[in-house]
Protein backbone atom coordinates (compact mmCIF):
# COMPACT_ATOMS: atom_id res chain seq x y z
CA UNK A 1 0.00 0.00 0.00
CA UNK A 2 2.70 2.37 -1.02
CA UNK A 3 2.07 6.03 -1.73
CA UNK A 4 4.17 8.34 -3.85
CA UNK A 5 6.95 10.30 -2.22
CA UNK A 6 6.98 13.78 -3.74
CA UNK A 7 9.82 14.33 -6.16
CA UNK A 8 11.17 10.78 -6.14
CA UNK A 9 11.56 9.30 -9.60
CA UNK A 10 14.26 6.72 -9.00
CA UNK A 11 17.01 6.01 -11.41
CA UNK A 12 16.90 2.45 -12.52
CA UNK A 13 14.07 0.88 -14.45
CA UNK A 14 16.03 -2.24 -15.30
CA UNK A 15 13.57 -4.45 -13.51
CA UNK A 16 14.79 -7.98 -13.85
CA UNK A 17 12.51 -10.97 -13.22
CA UNK A 18 15.32 -12.51 -11.24
CA UNK A 19 15.18 -9.72 -8.63
CA UNK A 20 12.87 -10.51 -5.67
CA UNK A 21 10.66 -7.70 -4.32
CA UNK A 22 12.45 -4.91 -2.46
CA UNK A 23 15.88 -5.86 -3.84
CA UNK A 24 18.37 -3.69 -5.74
CA UNK A 25 20.99 -5.05 -8.12
CA UNK A 26 24.60 -4.42 -7.10
CA UNK A 27 27.81 -5.15 -8.90
CA UNK A 28 30.18 -5.03 -5.94
CA UNK A 29 29.98 -7.55 -3.11
CA UNK A 30 28.95 -5.90 0.17
CA UNK A 31 30.02 -7.48 3.46
CA UNK A 32 27.83 -8.00 6.50
CA UNK A 33 28.90 -9.69 9.70
CA UNK A 34 28.12 -9.22 13.36
CA UNK A 35 31.71 -9.34 14.54
CA UNK A 36 35.35 -9.60 13.48
CA UNK A 37 36.40 -11.86 10.61
CA UNK A 38 37.88 -15.06 12.09
CA UNK A 39 41.15 -16.34 10.69
CA UNK A 40 40.84 -20.00 9.84
CA UNK A 41 43.75 -21.95 8.36
CA UNK A 42 42.76 -24.83 6.09
CA UNK A 43 45.34 -26.96 7.97
CA UNK A 44 43.14 -26.63 11.06
CA UNK A 45 39.78 -26.50 9.29
CA UNK A 46 37.35 -29.33 9.71
CA UNK A 47 33.72 -29.80 8.88
CA UNK A 48 31.37 -31.94 10.94
CA UNK A 49 27.79 -33.11 10.70
CA UNK A 50 26.44 -34.08 14.11
CA UNK A 51 23.30 -36.19 14.43
CA UNK A 52 21.44 -38.10 17.14
CA UNK A 53 23.57 -41.12 16.14
CA UNK A 54 26.97 -39.44 16.21
CA UNK A 55 28.04 -37.92 12.97
CA UNK A 56 30.74 -37.48 10.38
CA UNK A 57 33.86 -35.34 10.17
CA UNK A 58 36.01 -34.22 7.22
CA UNK A 59 39.42 -32.53 7.17
CA UNK A 60 40.14 -29.98 4.43
CA UNK A 61 42.07 -32.57 2.40
CA UNK A 62 39.29 -35.13 2.77
CA UNK A 63 36.75 -32.49 1.78
CA UNK A 64 38.69 -31.69 -1.40
CA UNK A 65 38.44 -35.37 -2.40
CA UNK A 66 34.63 -35.15 -2.52
CA UNK A 67 32.73 -34.44 -5.72
CA UNK A 68 33.10 -30.72 -6.42
CA UNK A 69 30.42 -28.80 -8.29
CA UNK A 70 30.41 -25.49 -10.16
CA UNK A 71 27.41 -23.41 -9.18
CA UNK A 72 26.09 -20.29 -10.90
CA UNK A 73 23.36 -18.63 -8.89
CA UNK A 74 21.71 -15.38 -7.83
CA UNK A 75 22.15 -14.25 -4.21
CA UNK A 76 19.90 -11.97 -2.17
CA UNK A 77 20.85 -10.14 1.02
CA UNK A 78 18.19 -9.07 3.51
CA UNK A 79 19.70 -5.56 3.46
CA UNK A 80 18.18 -5.14 -0.03
CA UNK A 81 21.02 -5.96 -2.41
CA UNK A 82 21.12 -8.84 -4.87
CA UNK A 83 23.84 -10.12 -7.19
CA UNK A 84 22.90 -12.12 -10.26
CA UNK A 85 24.80 -14.98 -11.84
CA UNK A 86 27.51 -15.38 -9.21
CA UNK A 87 29.98 -18.23 -9.69
CA UNK A 88 30.95 -20.61 -6.90
CA UNK A 89 32.63 -23.98 -6.43
CA UNK A 90 31.82 -26.28 -3.58
CA UNK A 91 30.48 -29.58 -2.35
CA UNK A 92 26.75 -30.22 -2.51
CA UNK A 93 25.09 -31.00 0.81
CA UNK A 94 23.48 -33.96 -1.00
CA UNK A 95 27.00 -35.41 -1.24
CA UNK A 96 27.67 -34.81 2.46
CA UNK A 97 24.31 -36.12 3.65
CA UNK A 98 24.69 -39.28 1.52
CA UNK A 99 27.02 -40.43 4.30
CA UNK A 100 24.75 -39.41 7.20
CA UNK A 101 21.61 -40.96 8.76
CA UNK A 102 19.16 -38.85 10.76
CA UNK A 103 15.50 -38.72 11.72
CA UNK A 104 15.69 -35.02 12.57
CA UNK A 105 14.21 -32.40 10.24
CA UNK A 106 16.13 -29.25 11.18
CA UNK A 107 19.71 -28.04 11.00
CA UNK A 108 21.72 -25.49 12.92
CA UNK A 109 24.78 -24.34 11.00
CA UNK A 110 27.74 -23.44 13.23
CA UNK A 111 30.60 -21.17 12.22
CA UNK A 112 34.10 -20.39 13.38
CA UNK A 113 33.60 -17.25 15.45
CA UNK A 114 30.36 -18.51 16.99
CA UNK A 115 27.76 -17.53 14.38
CA UNK A 116 24.78 -19.84 13.98
CA UNK A 117 21.81 -20.02 11.61
CA UNK A 118 18.92 -22.46 11.33
CA UNK A 119 17.61 -24.09 8.13
CA UNK A 120 15.15 -26.96 7.60
CA UNK A 121 17.04 -30.03 6.36
CA UNK A 122 14.91 -30.47 3.26
CA UNK A 123 15.91 -26.97 2.12
CA UNK A 124 19.56 -28.02 2.17
CA UNK A 125 18.96 -31.05 -0.07
CA UNK A 126 17.91 -31.55 -3.67
CA UNK A 127 20.73 -29.54 -5.26
CA UNK A 128 19.90 -26.35 -3.39
CA UNK A 129 22.81 -25.97 -0.95
CA UNK A 130 26.58 -26.31 -0.92
CA UNK A 131 29.66 -25.76 1.21
CA UNK A 132 31.47 -23.33 -1.08
CA UNK A 133 35.18 -22.52 -1.02
CA UNK A 134 35.70 -20.62 -4.30
CA UNK A 135 34.08 -17.45 -5.61
CA UNK A 136 34.68 -16.26 -9.18
CA UNK A 137 37.50 -18.74 -9.64
CA UNK A 138 39.45 -17.64 -6.55
CA UNK A 139 39.67 -19.05 -3.03
CA UNK A 140 36.88 -17.50 -0.99
CA UNK A 141 38.04 -14.29 0.68
CA UNK A 142 37.92 -14.41 4.53
CA UNK A 143 35.61 -11.38 4.71
CA UNK A 144 33.16 -13.27 2.49
CA UNK A 145 33.39 -16.40 4.63
CA UNK A 146 36.57 -18.18 3.55
CA UNK A 147 37.95 -20.74 3.72
CA UNK A 148 34.41 -22.11 3.32
CA UNK A 149 30.85 -20.93 3.74
CA UNK A 150 27.45 -22.43 3.42
CA UNK A 151 25.70 -21.46 0.17
CA UNK A 152 21.90 -21.62 0.31
CA UNK A 153 21.04 -19.14 -2.42
CA UNK A 154 17.26 -19.61 -2.43
CA UNK A 155 17.12 -18.08 1.06
CA UNK A 156 18.34 -14.63 2.19
CA UNK A 157 22.10 -14.67 2.37
CA UNK A 158 22.45 -14.55 6.16
CA UNK A 159 21.43 -18.25 5.98
CA UNK A 160 24.60 -18.90 3.93
CA UNK A 161 26.74 -19.01 7.07
CA UNK A 162 30.28 -17.70 6.59
CA UNK A 163 33.26 -19.62 8.05
CA UNK A 164 31.04 -22.67 8.42
CA UNK A 165 32.50 -25.49 10.49
CA UNK A 166 29.59 -27.84 10.89
CA UNK A 167 25.94 -28.73 10.87
CA UNK A 168 24.02 -29.94 13.90
CA UNK A 169 20.77 -31.84 13.33
CA UNK A 170 17.87 -30.81 15.56
CA UNK A 171 14.37 -32.18 16.21
CA UNK A 172 12.90 -28.65 16.24
CA UNK A 173 13.48 -25.44 14.26
CA UNK A 174 15.41 -23.48 16.90
CA UNK A 175 16.46 -19.92 15.97
CA UNK A 176 20.10 -19.13 15.16
CA UNK A 177 21.99 -15.90 15.78
CA UNK A 178 20.24 -13.41 13.50
CA UNK A 179 16.97 -15.25 13.92
CA UNK A 180 17.17 -14.41 17.65
CA UNK A 181 18.12 -10.85 16.77
CA UNK A 182 15.25 -9.80 14.58
CA UNK A 183 15.49 -11.80 11.36
CA UNK A 184 12.89 -14.22 10.08
CA UNK A 185 13.07 -17.90 11.06
CA UNK A 186 12.87 -19.02 7.41
CA UNK A 187 14.01 -16.19 5.10
CA UNK A 188 12.49 -16.70 1.63
CA UNK A 189 13.38 -13.59 -0.46
CA UNK A 190 10.44 -14.12 -2.83
CA UNK A 191 8.04 -13.85 0.10
CA UNK A 192 10.09 -11.04 1.70
CA UNK A 193 10.55 -13.06 4.88
CA UNK A 194 13.01 -10.51 6.25
CA UNK A 195 12.07 -9.86 9.84
CA UNK A 196 9.89 -11.23 12.64
Amino acid sequence: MSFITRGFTGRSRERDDRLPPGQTLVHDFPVLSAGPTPEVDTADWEFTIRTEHGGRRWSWDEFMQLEIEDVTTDIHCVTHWSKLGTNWRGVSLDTLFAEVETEYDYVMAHSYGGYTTNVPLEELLGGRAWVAFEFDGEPLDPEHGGPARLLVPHLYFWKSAKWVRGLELMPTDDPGFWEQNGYHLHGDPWKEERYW
Partner: protein
Amino acid sequence: MSEVQQLQAAPRTAWHVAEVTETRRETPTAARISLDVVGWPGNLAGQHLDVRLTAPDGYTATRSYSIASSGDGERVVLAVDRLPDGEVSPFLVDELRAGDRLEVHGPLGAFFVWRPPASGAVGRPVQLIAGGSGVVPLVAIARAHADAGDATPFRLLYSVRTPDDVFFAAELEAARRGPAPLEVEFVYTRSAPDGSGGPVGRITRERLAAAVIGADAAPIVYVCGSTGFVERVAAWLIELGHDQAAIRTERYGGT
Protein backbone atom coordinates in the same frame (compact mmCIF):
# COMPACT_ATOMS: atom_id res chain seq x y z
CA MET B 1 13.79 2.49 31.64
CA SER B 2 10.71 0.32 31.95
CA GLU B 3 9.57 1.38 28.48
CA VAL B 4 12.79 0.16 26.94
CA GLN B 5 12.41 -3.17 28.68
CA GLN B 6 8.91 -3.46 27.31
CA LEU B 7 10.32 -2.97 23.84
CA GLN B 8 12.77 -5.73 24.48
CA ALA B 9 9.96 -8.09 25.39
CA ALA B 10 7.80 -7.27 22.39
CA PRO B 11 9.73 -5.88 19.47
CA ARG B 12 7.12 -5.31 16.80
CA THR B 13 8.31 -4.20 13.44
CA ALA B 14 5.95 -2.95 10.76
CA TRP B 15 5.68 -0.48 7.91
CA HIS B 16 4.80 3.02 9.06
CA VAL B 17 4.00 6.27 7.32
CA ALA B 18 6.60 8.90 8.19
CA GLU B 19 6.24 12.63 7.70
CA VAL B 20 9.36 14.74 7.44
CA THR B 21 9.26 17.43 10.12
CA GLU B 22 12.66 18.94 9.40
CA THR B 23 15.68 18.42 7.21
CA ARG B 24 18.89 20.29 7.62
CA ARG B 25 22.44 20.13 6.44
CA GLU B 26 24.51 17.99 8.79
CA THR B 27 27.81 18.14 6.91
CA PRO B 28 28.72 19.29 3.37
CA THR B 29 27.58 15.87 2.10
CA ALA B 30 24.96 14.79 4.63
CA ALA B 31 21.53 15.77 5.91
CA ARG B 32 19.81 15.32 9.24
CA ILE B 33 16.23 14.20 8.73
CA SER B 34 13.64 14.33 11.51
CA LEU B 35 10.57 12.17 11.03
CA ASP B 36 7.24 11.95 12.75
CA VAL B 37 6.28 8.27 12.49
CA VAL B 38 2.69 7.47 13.42
CA GLY B 39 2.58 4.26 15.43
CA TRP B 40 6.35 4.00 15.89
CA PRO B 41 6.88 1.78 18.95
CA GLY B 42 10.11 3.50 20.00
CA ASN B 43 13.55 2.02 19.42
CA LEU B 44 16.70 0.99 21.19
CA ALA B 45 19.95 2.88 20.67
CA GLY B 46 21.80 1.37 17.71
CA GLN B 47 18.82 -0.01 15.79
CA HIS B 48 18.10 0.73 12.14
CA LEU B 49 15.12 0.98 9.81
CA ASP B 50 14.27 0.51 6.16
CA VAL B 51 13.20 3.55 4.12
CA ARG B 52 10.95 2.93 1.10
CA LEU B 53 10.42 5.55 -1.60
CA THR B 54 7.78 5.16 -4.31
CA ALA B 55 7.88 6.94 -7.68
CA PRO B 56 4.74 8.01 -9.59
CA ASP B 57 4.91 4.92 -11.82
CA GLY B 58 4.98 2.60 -8.81
CA TYR B 59 8.72 1.98 -8.88
CA THR B 60 10.05 1.59 -5.35
CA ALA B 61 13.51 1.72 -3.81
CA THR B 62 14.27 0.51 -0.30
CA ARG B 63 17.42 1.13 1.76
CA SER B 64 18.49 0.57 5.37
CA TYR B 65 19.61 3.48 7.58
CA SER B 66 20.80 3.60 11.15
CA ILE B 67 18.73 5.64 13.57
CA ALA B 68 20.47 8.50 15.40
CA SER B 69 17.78 8.72 18.09
CA SER B 70 16.37 6.25 20.60
CA GLY B 71 13.72 5.86 23.24
CA ASP B 72 9.97 6.21 23.27
CA GLY B 73 7.94 8.43 21.09
CA GLU B 74 7.19 8.79 17.42
CA ARG B 75 10.04 11.14 16.55
CA VAL B 76 12.86 9.43 14.67
CA VAL B 77 16.06 11.14 13.55
CA LEU B 78 18.22 9.92 10.69
CA ALA B 79 21.46 11.29 9.30
CA VAL B 80 22.15 10.30 5.71
CA ASP B 81 25.39 10.79 3.79
CA ARG B 82 25.11 11.32 0.03
CA LEU B 83 26.76 8.49 -1.87
CA PRO B 84 28.17 9.90 -5.13
CA ASP B 85 26.58 7.21 -7.26
CA GLY B 86 23.55 6.56 -5.07
CA GLU B 87 19.94 6.37 -6.11
CA VAL B 88 18.24 7.02 -2.77
CA SER B 89 20.75 8.96 -0.67
CA PRO B 90 21.07 11.95 -3.07
CA PHE B 91 17.27 12.28 -3.02
CA LEU B 92 17.14 12.15 0.78
CA VAL B 93 20.01 14.61 1.19
CA ASP B 94 19.19 17.11 -1.56
CA GLU B 95 15.48 16.84 -2.42
CA LEU B 96 13.57 15.82 0.67
CA ARG B 97 11.94 18.62 2.65
CA ALA B 98 9.57 19.17 5.56
CA GLY B 99 6.06 17.91 4.86
CA ASP B 100 7.14 15.12 2.51
CA ARG B 101 6.04 11.62 3.33
CA LEU B 102 7.80 8.31 2.94
CA GLU B 103 7.53 4.85 4.45
CA VAL B 104 9.73 3.30 7.10
CA HIS B 105 9.91 -0.26 8.42
CA GLY B 106 11.30 -1.03 11.82
CA PRO B 107 12.80 -0.81 14.30
CA LEU B 108 15.26 -3.45 13.10
CA GLY B 109 18.18 -5.31 14.62
CA ALA B 110 18.60 -6.48 18.18
CA PHE B 111 22.35 -7.11 18.30
CA PHE B 112 24.12 -3.84 17.50
CA VAL B 113 22.25 -2.12 20.34
CA TRP B 114 23.02 -0.78 23.78
CA ARG B 115 20.68 -0.82 26.75
CA PRO B 116 21.43 1.16 29.91
CA PRO B 117 22.16 -1.16 32.85
CA ALA B 118 19.59 -1.30 35.65
CA SER B 119 19.51 1.80 37.77
CA GLY B 120 22.62 2.16 39.90
CA ALA B 121 24.50 -0.70 38.22
CA VAL B 122 27.70 -0.07 36.30
CA GLY B 123 28.01 -2.22 33.21
CA ARG B 124 31.11 -3.26 31.31
CA PRO B 125 32.88 -0.24 29.85
CA VAL B 126 31.88 0.63 26.31
CA GLN B 127 34.22 1.60 23.48
CA LEU B 128 32.60 3.09 20.38
CA ILE B 129 34.64 3.27 17.17
CA ALA B 130 33.24 5.12 14.17
CA GLY B 131 34.41 5.59 10.61
CA GLY B 132 32.68 8.47 8.79
CA SER B 133 28.88 8.23 8.68
CA GLY B 134 29.19 4.97 10.62
CA VAL B 135 28.99 7.22 13.66
CA VAL B 136 25.19 7.48 13.40
CA PRO B 137 24.18 4.42 15.50
CA LEU B 138 27.05 5.22 17.89
CA VAL B 139 25.67 8.73 18.39
CA ALA B 140 22.38 7.11 19.37
CA ILE B 141 24.22 4.91 21.87
CA ALA B 142 26.32 7.78 23.30
CA ARG B 143 23.23 9.98 23.68
CA ALA B 144 21.21 7.18 25.32
CA HIS B 145 24.05 6.79 27.80
CA ALA B 146 24.10 10.53 28.43
CA ASP B 147 20.31 10.79 28.71
CA ALA B 148 20.24 7.94 31.23
CA GLY B 149 22.98 9.62 33.28
CA ASP B 150 24.51 6.16 33.25
CA ALA B 151 27.79 5.66 35.15
CA THR B 152 29.30 3.15 32.71
CA PRO B 153 32.62 4.47 31.34
CA PHE B 154 32.29 5.26 27.61
CA ARG B 155 34.80 6.27 24.96
CA LEU B 156 34.21 7.23 21.36
CA LEU B 157 36.97 7.11 18.76
CA TYR B 158 35.72 8.84 15.62
CA SER B 159 37.62 8.75 12.35
CA VAL B 160 36.45 11.54 10.06
CA ARG B 161 37.81 13.42 7.06
CA THR B 162 37.76 16.98 8.42
CA PRO B 163 36.15 18.88 11.31
CA ASP B 164 33.36 19.96 8.92
CA ASP B 165 32.45 16.33 8.33
CA VAL B 166 31.67 15.56 11.97
CA PHE B 167 28.07 14.40 12.48
CA PHE B 168 26.17 15.59 15.57
CA ALA B 169 29.13 17.65 16.76
CA ALA B 170 27.07 19.74 19.20
CA GLU B 171 25.22 16.72 20.59
CA LEU B 172 28.46 14.81 21.12
CA GLU B 173 29.98 17.80 22.88
CA ALA B 174 26.92 18.10 25.13
CA ALA B 175 27.08 14.38 25.93
CA ARG B 176 30.79 14.70 26.70
CA ARG B 177 30.14 17.56 29.13
CA GLY B 178 27.26 15.76 30.84
CA PRO B 179 27.50 13.68 34.01
CA ALA B 180 27.66 10.32 32.21
CA PRO B 181 31.34 9.54 31.62
CA LEU B 182 32.20 9.91 27.91
CA GLU B 183 35.56 10.63 26.32
CA VAL B 184 35.67 11.58 22.65
CA GLU B 185 38.74 11.43 20.43
CA PHE B 186 38.85 12.32 16.76
CA VAL B 187 41.13 10.92 14.09
CA TYR B 188 41.17 13.38 11.17
CA THR B 189 42.05 11.67 7.92
CA ARG B 190 42.33 14.80 5.67
CA SER B 191 42.64 17.89 7.84
CA ALA B 192 42.61 18.65 11.55
CA PRO B 193 41.11 21.78 13.18
CA ASP B 194 43.16 24.94 12.60
CA GLY B 195 46.04 25.26 14.98
CA SER B 196 45.49 21.88 16.60
CA GLY B 197 48.75 20.58 15.19
CA GLY B 198 47.47 17.06 15.67
CA PRO B 199 48.35 14.21 13.34
CA VAL B 200 46.37 13.83 10.13
CA GLY B 201 45.89 10.52 8.38
CA ARG B 202 44.18 7.21 8.50
CA ILE B 203 43.90 5.45 11.78
CA THR B 204 46.82 3.17 12.59
CA ARG B 205 47.14 0.23 14.93
CA GLU B 206 49.28 2.37 17.27
CA ARG B 207 46.76 5.20 17.31
CA LEU B 208 43.97 2.74 17.99
CA ALA B 209 45.90 1.05 20.79
CA ALA B 210 46.56 4.42 22.45
CA ALA B 211 42.97 5.66 22.16
CA VAL B 212 40.73 2.75 23.09
CA ILE B 213 39.85 1.25 26.45
CA GLY B 214 42.38 -1.52 27.07
CA ALA B 215 41.53 -5.18 26.72
CA ASP B 216 42.28 -5.68 30.45
CA ALA B 217 39.17 -3.61 31.25
CA ALA B 218 37.09 -6.01 29.09
CA PRO B 219 35.07 -3.37 27.25
CA ILE B 220 32.23 -4.12 24.87
CA VAL B 221 33.33 -2.60 21.56
CA TYR B 222 31.00 -1.33 18.84
CA VAL B 223 32.61 -0.66 15.46
CA CYS B 224 30.71 0.91 12.57
CA GLY B 225 32.03 2.23 9.28
CA SER B 226 32.95 1.08 5.79
CA THR B 227 33.89 -2.55 5.29
CA GLY B 228 37.59 -1.69 4.98
CA PHE B 229 37.53 0.38 8.17
CA VAL B 230 35.66 -2.26 10.15
CA GLU B 231 37.86 -5.12 8.92
CA ARG B 232 41.07 -3.25 9.82
CA VAL B 233 39.91 -2.04 13.20
CA ALA B 234 38.38 -5.36 14.27
CA ALA B 235 41.51 -7.28 13.29
CA TRP B 236 43.70 -4.85 15.27
CA LEU B 237 41.43 -5.09 18.30
CA ILE B 238 41.90 -8.86 18.34
CA GLU B 239 45.67 -8.43 18.01
CA LEU B 240 45.48 -6.06 20.98
CA GLY B 241 43.89 -8.80 23.05
CA HIS B 242 40.22 -7.88 22.88
CA ASP B 243 37.75 -10.74 23.13
CA GLN B 244 36.29 -11.49 19.71
CA ALA B 245 32.89 -12.14 21.27
CA ALA B 246 32.86 -8.62 22.78
CA ILE B 247 33.33 -6.87 19.41
CA ARG B 248 30.15 -5.96 17.57
CA THR B 249 30.43 -4.71 14.01
CA GLU B 250 28.18 -3.00 11.53
CA ARG B 251 29.09 -1.76 8.08
CA TYR B 252 27.41 0.49 5.62
CA GLY B 253 27.02 -1.11 2.22
CA GLY B 254 27.58 0.05 -1.31
CA THR B 255 24.03 1.02 -2.17
